[in-house]
């Protein structure tokens, strides 16, 4: 007698996706109400509903200041934050699967160091007369780092696979080390402006705009689609490339597509918000405890969980703590100990 495992867990996954989505929406509304000015939940809902309906009676009755706070300040920040949390988490799942390593994260290949390097260059250039867009430089830095890491670890077409996980990880470490030295040099050169660089590196969602929301959401939706399409293949790849190949997976193509997808998700996240650690590492681990390692469940659930957690952390730093502290610092301070606990627990099992 047998029970079709997938049929049941599919329902279970569907329920969890609904539950997590519900939590995320609730979290967005609650977070929008919190801050220097407390705004009622019903007013938030009314305001958003009014905006979606093209500006109805509700909006007119509300104070224009409140409307600006919610629609132009808080919601862009909240939605960018949630999208970045989701993107970093999907990226973490992809890297862990491709690199056959549960300890890989979106920054394993040096994407964050590349983005940070690009951002530093932009900040340094901005010290002169011209204003250089930091996110654009960060994104370019991340992408060129990825290309260089892939070039370094490319082993040739005759090898078992074009990119082996070990050479990718090693190349990432080497390139990140070089870039870190470059960043240190730029900090030194920046002199009094060094604080701008340091604050950017620690990550923040302050003063995000709707264009940030649209940008990150576009990448997130695209990345989610591609990841889900290849999720089943990633299951096989994560158990070894040779056996995946014998089961009909074009391992070279799947690895390349998911590697680029994961890196772009990480790159856009870093370029919008700076370096936010531990989300991409921690969230897939936490979700795996509930959903198991099947990427078809892990990817959507991790995305939602990442969005919830990062939004929670950002709300704490924005509206609960007396002074806003950089989000990257907070996620590391909270995520680090939790990860230690999960790691110890898995060692015991």
């Amino acid at each position: 007698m047998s029970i079709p495992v997938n049929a049941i867990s599919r329902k279970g996954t569907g329920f969890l996706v609904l539950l997590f989505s519900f939590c995320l929406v609730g979290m967005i509304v609650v977070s929008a109400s919190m801050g220097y000015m407390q705004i009622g939940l019903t007013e938030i809902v009314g305001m958003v509903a009014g905006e979606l309906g093209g500006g109805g009676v509700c909006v007119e009755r509300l104070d224009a200041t409140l409307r600006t706070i919610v629609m132009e300040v808080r919601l862009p920040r909240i939605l960018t934050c949630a999208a970045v949390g989701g993107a970093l988490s999907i990226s973490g799942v992809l890297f862990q699967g491709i690199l056959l390593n549960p300890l890989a994260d979106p920054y394993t290949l040096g994407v964050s160091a590349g983005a940070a390097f690009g951002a530093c260059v932009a900040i340094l250039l901005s010290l002169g007369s011209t204003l250089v867009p930091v996110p654009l430089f960060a994104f370019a830095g991340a992408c060129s780092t990825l290309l260089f890491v892939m070039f370094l670890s490319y082993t040739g077409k005759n090898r078992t696979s074009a990119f082996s996980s070990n050479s990718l990880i090693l190349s990432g470490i080497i390139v990140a080390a070089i870039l870190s030295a470059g960043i240190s040099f730029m900090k030194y050169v920046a002199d009094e402006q060094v604080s701008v660089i340091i604050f950017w590196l620690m990550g923040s969602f302050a003063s995000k705009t709707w264009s940030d929301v649209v940008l990150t959401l576009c990448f997130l939706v695209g990345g989610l689609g591609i990841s889900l399409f290849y999720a089943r293949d990633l299951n096989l790849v994560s158990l070894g490339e040779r056996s995946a190949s014998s089961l009909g997976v074009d391992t070279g193509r799947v690895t390349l597509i998911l590697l680029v997808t994961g890196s772009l998700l990480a790159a856009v996240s870093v370029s919008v918000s700076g370096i936010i650690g531990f989300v991409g590492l921690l969230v897939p681990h936490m979700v795996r405890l509930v959903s198991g390692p099947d990427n078809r469940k892990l990817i959507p659930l991790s995305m939602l969980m990442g969005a919830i957690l990062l939004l929670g952390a950002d709300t704490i730093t924005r509206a609960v703590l007396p002074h806003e502290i950089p989000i990257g610092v907070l996620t590391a301070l909270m995520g680090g100990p939790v990860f230690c606990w999960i790691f110890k627990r898995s060692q015991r099992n």
Partner: protein
Amino acid sequence: MEMSIRNLSFSYDSESVLQGIDLDFERGRFYSILGPNGCGKTTLLDLLIRHRKPAAGTITLDNRPLSSLSRKEIAQTISLVSQNYNINFPFTVKEVVMMGRHPYIPRFSTPGAGDIRIVDQVMERTGINGFRNRRITELSGGERQRCVVARALCQDTPLLFLDEAFSSMDISHTLRLLSIVKEAVERSNKTVVSVFHDINLASAWSDSLVFMKAGRVAAAGDTREVLTEAMLKEVFEVESRVVFNEYAGARQAYFKAGSHG
């Protein structure tokens, strides 16, 4: 299904790994490949499942070139059991075995009743049903390997390749799985090609042996004909005595303790 290999060569950059391999694998026979470490056995299997592309030569399946088949068609024709060192994700045993049905289940679909029946039958036959819901990361090396053999059996292909599939298994499970494989050869007319290190096990179970040395086929033919003292000397550079053993029902090689070369 019959596989023909003609003049197959492969190299890593400038380093030649396989040269001029000619082999025929016929339906309903059990082949074993023997040879020293690094002689190209695993690379040969990689070429035969198109995990790597040959530098020269042709591989045909029932007269159709392997290169003309899609990956899915190949996976429905050839299955491979390799050594699995890299299992880091806690899939359950049942999930791993179900992956053998991957070539038959369309993307975004769930396994059908037929897939589930095959998986259940294979788990029962291979003796892993008792731990079907355990995580594969918690199992011993031998238990894992049995799951991987079960996965390949679920793939239900006319050709089955085994790459040192039994080297981490105890003798009881090795014999049990070899019996299952042998039965598949005899009853379902499958072709099995197995890389072995144990010469006597290969001799007892195989219809034909292929000896490889330094990227070439040193000899291929009926087990009784090619397993000779001269051949072991040529391929492995060891002294031996090869005699027919009645209990094993096959020729067996004996080596003297403390002697080499």
